[in-house]
């Protein structure tokens, strides 16, 4: 058995932009994901971070096969599932589940919580007996910290945090091998956020889950993930072990992201130098040539970065980055980036 539960190779997803009412023609494409390769190891938590429009949610939807890739391959547990259909797809669906960002729109308002959580069983023809199914659903509700007596309530009777728990219960119902969580806490208040994060970690520990955790909050990702992939405009620009990434980022974009996070520490906030990136993320329908970050990069070298596309290569132990001019130690020591505390022994 390979160490990798999922292997993604050169994944591309372009969304066509068309014009015309009757005779539609394609006038361009949004390059949402453009050549992403990564492995998800068994039992780990892999983080995907990046700003709006970097393709992290599209990657999640491709990994769960909710979207079909334009090109590239996805292998799950040694099987190529890129074009899986029918029975094969159903098997994949059972093993890979998803938790969505918005706990308000991801639950059917006309169904009771019990039937929302029981739906995976209905789809896969499991636990046919009614009493059996109800019992299992109530166990699940209890598992995620909901009152099992609320089985017959509707989603609107629950708060945001509780709804997210319902989403978690639904995702673990079939005992999947992998869960892709797309911004599971960003719609929640801080005090509730911690409850859900703790729940996810606990479930992962108890069920041996592999977790793909997507977020834009770098502190949350550091807290949750063993490895982190940083995305920018449809590419993975850095893929590293959490500790390596937060202590010595190699890609200038990662460095800038880390320095931009407001830290809830008054003393650090005073000494920290923020590195401010200029401008906004360029449009994914017309991405910059070669290294896509070159338009905002503080280390941009004309004639190289905008001509030759950098590949993901090893820049340090456990650290892959796609950059011609990675951050050096002295640049990191220049306090441009807040260095993280050493990992617990």
């Amino acid at each position, binding site marked *: 058995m390979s160490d990798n539960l999922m292997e993604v190779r050169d994944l591309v997803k372009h969304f066509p932009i068309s014009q015309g009412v009757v005779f539609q023609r394609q006038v361009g494409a949004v390059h949402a994901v453009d050549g992403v390769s990564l492995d998800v190891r068994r039992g780990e938590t892999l983080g995907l971070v990046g700003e709006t429009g970097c393709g992290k949610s599209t990657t999640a939807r491709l990994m769960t096969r909710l979207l079909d890739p334009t090109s590239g391959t996805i292998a799950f547990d040694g099987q190529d599932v890129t074009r899986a259909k029918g029975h094969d797809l159903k098997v994949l669906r059972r093993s890979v589940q998803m938790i969505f960002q918005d706990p308000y729109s991801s639950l059917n308002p006309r169904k009771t919580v019990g039937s929302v959580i029981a739906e995976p069983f209905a789809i896969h023809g499991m636990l046919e007996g009614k009493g059996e199914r109800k019992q299992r659903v109530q166990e699940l509700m209890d598992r995620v910290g909901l009152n099992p007596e609320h089985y017959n309530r509707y989603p609107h009777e629950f708060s945001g945090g509780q709804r997210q728990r319902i989403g978690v219960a639904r995702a673990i119902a079939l005992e999947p091998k992998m869960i892709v969580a797309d911004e599971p806490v960003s719609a929640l208040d801080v005090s509730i956020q911690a409850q859900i994060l703790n729940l996810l970690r606990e479930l992962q520990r108890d069920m041996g889950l592999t977790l793909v955790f997507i977020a834009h909050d770098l502190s949350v990702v550091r807290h949750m993930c063993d490895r982190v992939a940083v995305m920018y405009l449809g590419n993975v620009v850095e893929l590293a072990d959490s500790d390596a990434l937060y202590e010595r980022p190699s890609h200038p974009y990662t460095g800038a992201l880390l320095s931009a996070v*407001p830290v809830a520490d008054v003393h650090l906030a005073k000494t920290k130098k923020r590195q401010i990136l200029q401008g906004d993320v360029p449009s994914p329908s017309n991405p910059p040539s070669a290294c896509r970050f070159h338009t905002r990069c503080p280390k941009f070298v004309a004639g190289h970065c905008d001509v030759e596309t950098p590949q993901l290569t090893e820049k340090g132990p456990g650290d892959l980055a796609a950059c011609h001019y990675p951050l050096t130690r002295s640049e990191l020591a220049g306090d441009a980036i807040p260095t993280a505390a050493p990992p617990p022994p």
Partner: protein
Amino acid sequence: MSPLLDVADLRVEFTTEDGVVHAVDGLSLSVEQGRILGVVGESGSGKSVTGLTVMGLTRGRNAAISGSVKFDGRELLGAGDAELRGIRGNDIAMIFQDPLSSLHPYFTVGKQLVEAHRIHHHGVSKAASRDRAAEMLDLVGIPDPRKRLDNYPHEFSGGMRQRAMIAMALINDPRLLIADEPTTALDVTVQAQILELIQRLQSELGMAVIMVTHDLGVVAELADDVVVMYAGRVVERGTKETIFDAPEHPYTWGLLTSIPRLTTPRGEELVPIAGRPPSLINRPSGCHFHPRCPYCLPRHTREDPRLEPVAGDTGHQVACLLPEDTRREIWRRVKGGVPPEQAREELLSGQEEAR
């Protein structure tokens, strides 16, 4: 020196079909010239309503507002609409969370900026106002400002819209800026740009800023003073350093321990606050935080805590019924990694048990 803005015992209640919503309940705060006040709290804590009420934007048939809001010695709550219009957008300006829905999609950015200027400067020519608008866009860092005046909001990116909003808010040199979650809708690199901009403009123009946010990181970076709100009330107030280094209220502790940080060792367990924010229609009795407080004692469910100064620090006030030394001991332990239940067990077990 008297503070620029002095809010005393402000109450805002909205009558709805479901009952009376006590959005703000006896809130007092003050901001001095040239200071940044951070107002933190979760959704439904009344922080936004406070900002809106200072601007006179919550007036309506179903709103009952009482207390006092004094700006530079002038009472704003009783002020007439005309007087308020002279202050709003002129002396006190506001920026909102969502820059797209706060700009009018039908008019160019330039027209909206010019309008904001001319409404308070009668007799100024359109050309002069346009110059001023371009100057403001330049100030907030929008390249090629003259050309950009003729753009519509949809032609701006999220960060640029927020810059345009800030330009509009500052066009009349306000003395107080109320920023209601100004960076929540933005990406982290753009957020850093906007925070730096607000900080730079604040120090250049010497205005006072009220920064309403749920993000403790933003407060730590930007604010001078902090007010922590819960269920429409101030539960703790102090300088930024006091709030982060020596917080006294269990809710503040909860906020501080429930966020993962880049500076703590990875993998450390988060200590969330149990339960969820209360309904503002049927508020809990006694201390409003008691149903979620790990250190709640029976009398806390009956008695209402008052915001009282902490001994030895007049600028630091807290509304908590626990004795001061017990509080300090609890925080010392919880900060050191002791779970709240254990800290309660160790320090409060002798006291009557009921939760």
